[in-house]
């Protein structure tokens, strides 16, 4: 039915809600159908699947998406029979439901994009569902047929007698006879005779029972159906007799033959089909599935909120700075207030950021299906293990994760894992394993995909890279550098383009996507033992807890979550590996030193770590580095301003922020710093000139 009487914008609003809801439902459905395939769908799960189909059908009906209504109708009927135990959860049925889920998803997106999925789309699935149901496809344009029920509309004045005798328990359904009488009166001139003969004496009267019955005389040009409609809800709790009265002289004429061409009341509402499609505005970017139920707020509003809170944080920091500079006791009185303001600001900011956070589950949930499909196609046995699905990350990031993740898992299965025969020959278990995990490390989320496959075939990768002119034939590359070649634009290891991985999207696109999120991708491969890909992505694109450090006249920000400790090393802790590399020994570990002053060529900085400080930081990919600074200034919430929009990427810098004093400080990127080599040779200094005598294990990134 149409949403008559609603304006275009209301309609659009409902439509948007509907599709957002559909996408949530579909994500949920995917989870349940996966359980079903694993044979673990209980009643509750089955009910949830049923409700999913049911909700989509109801909405689809309201918007007139006929294909969707038809399909969900049968799908729902099948699920209903499964709930009733009439149809068993066999693998065939499970498979059918999974395919049905796919059809459903496609029909939803077809409807959303205002296109036709094609007349035969999903017909095979529908046919099988109907076979199972043991009936011919039921026409489901029910709204139209319901409207058509009033075919026998007669008109002209007529007299009707109606006898209404309620059962005594009429009131238990809160039926109010008075309303029925009122409604009858609207049909025409009504005479009411109430029969009170069944009313018991007062002391025997039960006020909750119905004792009256009525005889009506109605003079109206309505049809029998119009009258029956009045009693629609009570026909099983009342005896109703409707009869056309013997015509009196007055109305004999009209009763004989209804005048030709008499006005027939058009049905109040239009059949479903005529509506929705026309008014539909082109759908925006396809909403990616998100399983968590939530209130829906336009992202733009939240962005504005985040920005405003960001500005508030900066303002608060400025205020704090100015107050800190005050000296006299009288002047310092507002400081308590400012501390409270700082706390509130921080709390507010956390709340705002939390609004945008969602578990990565919604993306992870799609992967078992992918693995199952591919393992079937490629004849490989794969066990997918997932962990950390509840790790939360900014919504915008989640949406961008799905494609890279899908691509990487495809790659793992297609290129990484061997066939069962090959695995057995290599002395491994027949079944390959893919681990997919998410975790918070520092201010990042790290998503890892590792397989126990064959690892990267470096000879082939190198040969292909040379062949494609990506590297020079005489280039000398380390293993790591060869592995990194798979991210090179235009690189493909597939010997032939398969429909699985050769979709014209390479790892270069994956990397570009990740980098555009401010993230990074690392690869570790061990021939014969497998490959691990780590994606490091900032949790949010907006704020971080930072430690402001001073190097010469410059201020830098270190993400607080990656800081382990800071200390001033004694000369005996310092070791020199070569002219470029210096390490510091702490608690038996040797940690490589990254000298910010040299790296960024800062003037007036302390060059000797034993005169300044070393900040020990954890690297998200594993390991630690020691960063040399002059002093720690203090901890602060940092509002991240991206540099990427205005500058080329600067190695070692992830962004910038505005400090309380209005100056800009650069935010250090620990992982990149860990991978950077010194740019200037170490000065020849007195204390640390002696070479390390024993071999040392250097703990550093990568």
């Amino acid at each position: 039915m149409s949403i008559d009487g609603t304006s275009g914008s209301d309609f659009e609003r409902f439509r948007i809600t509907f599709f957002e809801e559909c996408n949530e439902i579909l994500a949920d459905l995917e989870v349940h159908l996966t359980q079903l395939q694993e044979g673990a769908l209980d009643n509750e799960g089955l009910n949830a699947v049923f409700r999913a189909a049911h909700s989509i059908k109801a909405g689809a009906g309201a918007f007139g998406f006929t294909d969707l209504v038809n399909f969900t109708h049968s799908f729902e009927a099948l699920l209903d029979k499964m709930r009733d135990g009439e149809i068993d959860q066999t693998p065939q049925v499970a498979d059918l439901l999974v395919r049905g889920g796919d059809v459903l998803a496609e029909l939803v997106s077809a409807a959303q994009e205002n296109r036709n999925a094609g007349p035969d789309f999903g017909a095979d699935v529908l046919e099988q569902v109907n076979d199972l149901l043991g009936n011919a496809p039921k026409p489901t344009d029910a709204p139209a047929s319901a409207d058509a029920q009033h075919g026998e509309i007669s008109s002209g004045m007529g007299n009707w007698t109606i006898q209404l005798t309620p059962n005594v328990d009429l009131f238990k359904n809160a039926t109010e006879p008075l309303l029925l009488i009122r409604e009858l009166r609207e049909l025409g001139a009504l005479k009411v005779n109430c029969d009170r003969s069944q009313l018991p004496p007062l002391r025997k009267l039960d006020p909750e029972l119905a004792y009256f019955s009525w005889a009506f005389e109605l003079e109206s040009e309505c049809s029998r159906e119009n009258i029956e409609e009045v009693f629609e809800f009570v026909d099983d709790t009342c005896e109703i007799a409707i009869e056309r009265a013997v015509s009196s002289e007055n109305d004999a004429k009209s009763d004989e033959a209804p005048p030709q061409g008499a006005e027939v009341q058009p049905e109040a509402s239009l059949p479903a089909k005529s509506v929705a499609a026309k008014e539909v505005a082109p759908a925006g970017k396809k909403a990616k599935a998100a399983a968590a139920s939530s209130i829906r707020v336009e992202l733009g509003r939240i962005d504005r909120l985040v920005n405003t809170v960001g500005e508030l944080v900066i303002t608060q920091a400025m205020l704090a700075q100015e107050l800190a500079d005050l000296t006299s006791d009288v002047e310092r009185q507002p400081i308590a207030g400012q501390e409270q303001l700082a706390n509130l600001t921080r709390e507010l900011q956390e709340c705002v950021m939390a609004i945008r956070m969602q578990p990565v589950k919604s993306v992870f949930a799609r992967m078992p299906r992918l693995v199952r499909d591919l393992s079937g196609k490629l004849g490989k046995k794969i066990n997918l293990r997932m962990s950390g699905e509840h790790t939360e990350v900014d919504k915008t990031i989640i949406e961008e994760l799905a494609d890279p993740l899908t691509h990487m898992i495809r790659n793992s299965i297609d290129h990484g894992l061997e066939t069962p025969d090959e695995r057995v020959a290599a002395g491994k278990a027949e079944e390959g394993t893919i681990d997919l995990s998410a975790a918070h490390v520092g201010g990042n989320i790290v998503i890892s995909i590792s397989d126990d496959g064959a690892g990267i075939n470096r000879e082939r990768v190198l040969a292909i890279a040379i062949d494609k002119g990506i590297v020079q034939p005489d280039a000398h590359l380390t293993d790591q550098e060869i592995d990194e070649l798979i991210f090179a634009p235009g690189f493909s290891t597939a010997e032939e383009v398969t429909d699985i991985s050769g979709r014209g999207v390479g790892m270069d696109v994956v990397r570009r996507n990740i980098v555009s999120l401010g993230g990074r991708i690392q690869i570790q491969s061990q021939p014969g033992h497998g490959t691990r890909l780590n994606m490091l992505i900032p949790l949010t694109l907006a704020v971080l807890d930072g430690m402001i450090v001073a190097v010469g006249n410059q201020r830098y920000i270190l993400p607080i979550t990656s800081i382990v400790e800071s200390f001033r090393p004694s000369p005996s802790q310092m070791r020199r590996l070569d002219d470029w590399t210096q390490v510091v020994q702490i608690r038996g570990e040797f940690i490589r030193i990254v000298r910010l002053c040299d790296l960024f060529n800062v003037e007036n900085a302390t060059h000797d770590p034993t005169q300044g400080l070393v900040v020990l930081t954890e690297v998200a990919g594993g390991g630690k580095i020691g960063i040399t600074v002059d002093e720690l200034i203090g901890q602060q919430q940092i509002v991240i301003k991206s540099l990427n929009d205005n500058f080329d990427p600067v190695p070692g810098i992830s962004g910038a922020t505005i400090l309380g004093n209005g100056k800009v400080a650069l935010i250090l990127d620990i992982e990149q710093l860990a991978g950077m080599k010194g740019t200037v040779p170490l000065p020849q200094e007195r204390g640390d000139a002696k070479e390390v005598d024993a071999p040392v294990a250097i703990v550093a990134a990568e």
Partner: protein
Amino acid sequence: MAKRALTVDDSKTMRDMVAFTLKGAGFDVLEAEDGVHALSVVKGQKVDVVITDINMPNMDGVTLVRELRAKAEFKSTPILILTTEGGDDKKASGKAAGATGWIVKPFAPDKLLSVVNKVCP
């Protein structure tokens, strides 16, 4: 005073549309996502008409009707259930639980209003 309606449905689209339509007709509208939620929403509230879906998580519509009818303050409140076109058995089970009437899905605002008017003018 404006009449107050309660719409119970696990689908936000449905709730939105029902609420929008009823508000347009001058109702105050309370919303609930399922039966359990509905029972907590109506606590201490006077409601003039309830419109509930049947298929919902946690507590379905038929159970909700039964629970509401068991409360003195809901003995004579009209309760309508939303059913699909073919749901004769659903109508029957709804009636048996104490529902006053039903609204046939798919949703049509004028139909909804006419049914609501029928039981709660």
